[in-house]
């Protein structure tokens, strides 16, 4: 029963994905690139960086990068908290 449900869900989602991929526009021909053309044209004058990708990562979309650094920070804190030293009273299996 469980397996059949999973199989149906899997086939359904996969079919949707393939449908989305086949009805996309052609590869290598973006519909609307106004935003990216702006980056390519103005990264040197506005950010003074030769690498447009870095200009996007740290200036135009800098807030994403802050979030990304935060995600890594959260993972480090989470992993350190899993492997931390426990106190004596925190016994295996205590539900408090």
């Amino acid at each position, binding site marked *: 029963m469980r397996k059949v449900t999973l199989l149906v869900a899997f086939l359904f989602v996969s079919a949707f994905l393939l449908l989305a991929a086949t009805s996309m526009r052609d590869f290598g021909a973006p519909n609307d690139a106004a935003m990216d053309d702006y980056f390519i044209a103005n990264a*040197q004058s506005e950010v*003074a960086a030769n690498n447009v990708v*870095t200009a996007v990562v740290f200036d135009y979309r800098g*807030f994403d990068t802050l979030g990304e650094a935060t995600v890594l920070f959260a993972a480090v804190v989470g992993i350190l908290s899993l492997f931390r030293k426990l106190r004596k009273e925190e016994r295996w299996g205590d539900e408090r």
Partner: protein
Amino acid sequence: MNQQGMSVIVRTVTRFVYGLVLVFGFYVIMHGHLTPGGGFQGGAVVASAFALLLVAFGAAGVKGRLDKHLLQTLEEIGALAFLGLAFAGVGTVFFYNLLANSGSLFGASVALGPNAGVLNTGGLVPLMNWAVGLKVMTGIACIVIVMLVGARKEETE
């Protein structure tokens, strides 16, 4: 692979390669605004050098050299530095790049179009690269060490 690390060949090669990998990682971070790469990529390269040390010498072999508390502190400092650089522009808008084209440190303008690249450009971007690079190298190294040492403990139990 045992607690003492791998064979003498691997350890010798590691001693040679380790420094080169570090230098390459720092190069990638430093030239992030000019060539492919940046803080994340360079940080990952440096962290891979730490991982190489761990693999070659074992958890016991690097015990004195890579301390996880120090790494964690450095990571927090990197994160705070990045956030601080973002706050620096708050007089105008959060994340405003106030050093770009200002003429001060990293503030040189760049010639439009293809050029050879000048290191002294990019405003806050190179500084952020360094902050993120510090954060990523210490963060990933911290993850690798903690997971390796933690997994070891389980085997001996």
